């Protein structure tokens, strides 16, 4: 039985679920309910099968290699290679797709009669299916095709809510940026093909020695730009905060949770698996880019008051944290410290799955809030905890997990990332050590700022009094939506409490890569689930922390509620109002909350403030009629990166116009000169 589950047939069954789901929902698109039921059913069953398939693959440490010889050209063989790393990513994708699809059943209902549900179902299933293909494909050509399907399917999901003009604009930006990224990816694959003569990843890996070091460096840079663009590293991230909020929330959850991780997957695949051995500076570049993305991502998140854009910026931050783990793995491996490199990789993988879980949870609960209040602006929320208590609890769990507070999952993966960086600080010298110090410092400040940001997000959304009428009409979301969010919230806790077990599994996944085949690991998990890094440098236990916190909290509540005088009264009264009527305007807003941090980082964020006052009498300006204050954040990457780039491209195009000036005589003379030169060369 297990043999069949871990066979290629099983994998194609998995794909066929999404195929049937996609095509079927187009066929039944006339009826909204049927289309929803059809697409959700196949997505749920398919992802359930994916979870099952990948768990068994990982537990049995099995890898699959198979191809379809569809054409006479050997170049076009579709080949798949599902090793432990691919299985891990299949697990992440299907786990998230499962809960997002469950959530979708209820969430899609508000699109009824507005849009075609069949189309949504088609692209949704196509999107998930293409994600599976991307992480399993073993041929660069077909990889690119699947990569494009994924991009296009997600593009149509981004512009699905097309009545909103800004969504269409965001979609266009996404499409343009994606194509820029893809062109860099194509460049790196073509360079490899030039020297090796094959698009097959396994062949490339075996004959990587044929590629000269300079070309390998170019491949690294263009692949890092291409895949980094998909992952959303700064400054290539501009599409991310535009596109993720535009998509339907369960799709945003998938995009933020898993689609950007396909970039990380390919970086691990290329840099740690295929292009070995690598020079030291690759890892250091990844570390520096990771530090910048983490710190700037969270700073930009702090300036946002659009709840989904805020979450999108946090995706950039967390990609930065994952890159810190990956970058330290690359650095250690190029210095032959494979035990520490494995620690870095485990940290990166652990944060990948943790971020997928809590970010999906946050996007889904943000989706429920938007569904009820019809706005993404946090300044119009407030007090939602009384109207949507369960959604509030789920969002709180997500906030705690993403702020890396114990005993939730985010803490343990950030802890591991810290350990990798600490080991770098302890063992490296000179500027390598300084880069590790920079990375650890950026991670420390990122943690603190993320905490501030989620106090702001949760406080402004759910606490205090409603700041708009919409809030008072809000109701708790549908059962299927709560089920999807609730399961993810439980997973966020379980992945923290049982982090020891998860880490030992991730270690086997890391050892599945050929570079770590027989390597020892700097992270060990004892039989009592105690995580031990570098022979006792640091020791921690998820279960121990959880038990201690829960037991002592209950003890405190018991002692103070029951033992010390339980007869006193609690009376409910108004908040102290300083003698004026309390209105929602007395509360702090999301913008106000983060204003002091923005002010402190004004060198980076370049905040601007504009006053506009309209007077009753413009001649003698004594009595103002209305005042408007506009607060804005300068786009640093726009001013210092995209605008100069734009200028350079413009200048180059003007120069090109000198040659191509539309004069036909000149063109004929070009042909004549070219002919002459050609003749000269031949003769």
């Amino acid at each position: 039985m297990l043999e069949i589950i871990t066979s290629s047939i099983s994998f194609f069954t998995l794909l066929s679920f999404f195929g049937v789901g996609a095509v079927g929902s187009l066929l039944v698109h006339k009826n909204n309910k049927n289309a929803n039921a059809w697409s959700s059913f196949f997505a749920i069953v398919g992802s359930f099968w994916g979870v099952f398939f990948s768990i068994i693959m990982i537990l049995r440490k099995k890898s699959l290699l198979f191809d379809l010889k569809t054409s006479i050209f050997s170049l076009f063989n579709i080949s798949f290679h599902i090793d432990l790393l691919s299985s891990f990513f299949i697990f992440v994708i299907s786990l998230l797709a499962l809960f997002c699809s469950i959530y979708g059943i209820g969430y899609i209902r508000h699109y009824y009669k507005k849009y075609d549900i069949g189309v949504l179902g088609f692209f949704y299933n196509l999107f998930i299916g293409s994600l599976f293909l991307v992480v399993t494909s073993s041929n660069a050509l077909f990889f690119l095709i699947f990569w494009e399907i994924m991009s296009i399917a997600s593009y149509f999901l981004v512009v699905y809510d097309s009545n909103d003009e800004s969504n269409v604009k965001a979609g266009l930006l996404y499409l343009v940026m994606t194509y820029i990224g893809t062109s860099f990816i194509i460049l790196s694959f073509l360079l490899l093909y030039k020297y090796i003569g094959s698009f097959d990843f396994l062949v490339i890996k075996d004959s990587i020695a044929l590629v000269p070091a300079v070309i390998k460096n170019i491949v690294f840079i263009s692949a890092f730009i291409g895949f980094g663009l998909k992952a959303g590293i700064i400054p290539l991230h501009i599409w991310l905060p535009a596109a993720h909020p535009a998509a339907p929330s369960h799709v945003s959850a998938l995009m933020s949770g898993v689609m950007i991780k396909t970039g990380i997957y390919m970086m691990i695949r290329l840099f740690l698996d295929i292009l070995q051995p690598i020079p030291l500076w690759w890892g250091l570049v990844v570390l520096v880019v990771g530090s910048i993305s983490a710190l700037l991502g969270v700073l930009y998140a702090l300036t946002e008051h659009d709840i989904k854009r805020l979450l999108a910026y946090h995706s950039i931050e967390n990609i930065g944290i994952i890159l810190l783990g990956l970058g330290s793995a690359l650095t250690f491996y190029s210095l032959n410290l494979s035990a520490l490199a494995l620690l870095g990789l485990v940290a990166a993988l652990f944060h990948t799955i943790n971020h997928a879980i809590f970010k999906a949870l946050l996007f889904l609960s943000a989706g429920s809030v938007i569904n009820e209040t019809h706005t993404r602006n946090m300044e119009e929320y407030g007090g939602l905890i009384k109207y949507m208590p369960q959604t509030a609890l789920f969002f709180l769990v997500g906030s705690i997990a993403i702020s890396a507070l114990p005993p939730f999952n985010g803490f343990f993966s950030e802890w591991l990332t810290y350990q990798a960086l600490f080991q770098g600080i302890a063992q490296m010298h000179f500027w390598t050590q300084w880069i590790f110090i920079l990375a650890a410092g950026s991670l420390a400040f990122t943690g603190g700022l993320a905490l501030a940001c989620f106090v702001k997000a949760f406080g402004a959304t759910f606490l205090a009094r409603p700041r708009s009428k919409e809030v008072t009409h809000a109701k708790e979301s549908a059962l299927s939506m709560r089920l999807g969010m609730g399961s993810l919230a439980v997973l966020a806790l379980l992945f923290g409490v049982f982090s020891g077990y998860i880490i030992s599994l991730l270690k086997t996944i890391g050892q599945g890569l050929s570079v770590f085949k027989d390597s020892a690991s700097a992270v060990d998990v004892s039989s009592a689930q105690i995580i031990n890094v570098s022979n006792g440098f640091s020791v921690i236990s998820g279960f121990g922390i959880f038990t201690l916190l829960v037991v002592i909290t209950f003890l405190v509540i018991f002692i103070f509620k029951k033992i010390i005088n339980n007869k006193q009264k609690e009376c409910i009264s108004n908040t102290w109002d300083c003698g004026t009527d309390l209105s929602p305007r007395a509360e702090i807003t999301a913008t106000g909350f983060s204003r002091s941090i923005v002010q402190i980082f004004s060198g980076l964020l370049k905040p601007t403030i504009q006053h506009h006052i309209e007077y009753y009498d413009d001649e003698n300006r004594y009595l103002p009629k209305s005042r408007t204050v506009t607060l804005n954040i300068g786009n640093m990457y726009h001013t210092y990166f995209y605008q100069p780039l734009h200028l350079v491209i413009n200048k180059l195009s003007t120069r090109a116009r000198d040659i191509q000036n539309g004069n036909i005589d000149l063109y004929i003379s070009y042909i004549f000169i070219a002919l002459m030169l050609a003749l000269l060369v031949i003769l």
Partner: protein
Amino acid sequence: MLVFIWIIQLIFIPFFSPLCIGIIRKIKAKLQNRQGANIFQPYRDLWKLLHKDEVISSDASWIFKFTPYIIFAVTLVVGLSVPLFLPRIVGFVTSDILFIVYALAISTFFMALAGMDTGSAFGGFGSSREMTIAALAEGGFIFSLLTMALIAGSSNLFTIAGLTRSIDSQSFLPAILAFGGFFIILLAETSRFPFDNPATHLELTMVHEAMILECSGKRLALMEWAASNKLLIFMSLGANLFFPFGLDLNVGLGTIVLGMFYFLIKIFLFCVVVALLESSIAKFRFFRLPDLLLVSFIFNVVAIGLIK
């Protein structure tokens, strides 16, 4: 024996933390030529508050109601995990430097949420200021503990407290720099001068007091008590990680009594320093605080660079 150690570790911090507050207040009063209240006054205040009726805002949710318990419990867990005067306990998984930092962040997180929960303007700006300071203090906090961890070769607090006893002259300078950084963080995290004024009710200077303004009765008692626990936790970290005399790793009644004696003297000295500092300097303007926190971070970065 193990259970005995656990219980002492658990109850020592909450039992003695109000005393520290009392001592600091007494010294400050003496310096201001006042008689000052008895050093046991904080205990009486807590006892009085624990028996009073409560008023809870109608806007408050369960976050506000549960926060005092969560914060107090967190300080107990952290208090249990830091070295005091008892020997190392085998298999203490919570004595990790990062766990201490992030566990204290739980209390900051919930305190800031509780401040926003009642919808008063005071709570909101208090939370905003507190999170600003906490966010910027985190780098210095982690790095000062990391410096000591790198010197000791372990991130377990008990090992650090034990190993730096045999501190060599080479790690002397990094340790001093790290202590400088740590002391700034101590003042920031425990809301003392120049970051916050623990005795103020003036809105311009309030941070911690603004967040707990709506608390009353039992909840106010827990909040105040947790704040004093946090102060004692930070002082014991400073006393034991950076000045580790008297802490003996061997189990024995004599060593424990001696350890306790040294520990109490060190804590008393910390109280004196904090009180002297509060009597001699003014509160900083809010936007000058980041500079101070950055100084703490840079001290530690330099310290790490100096470790060889």
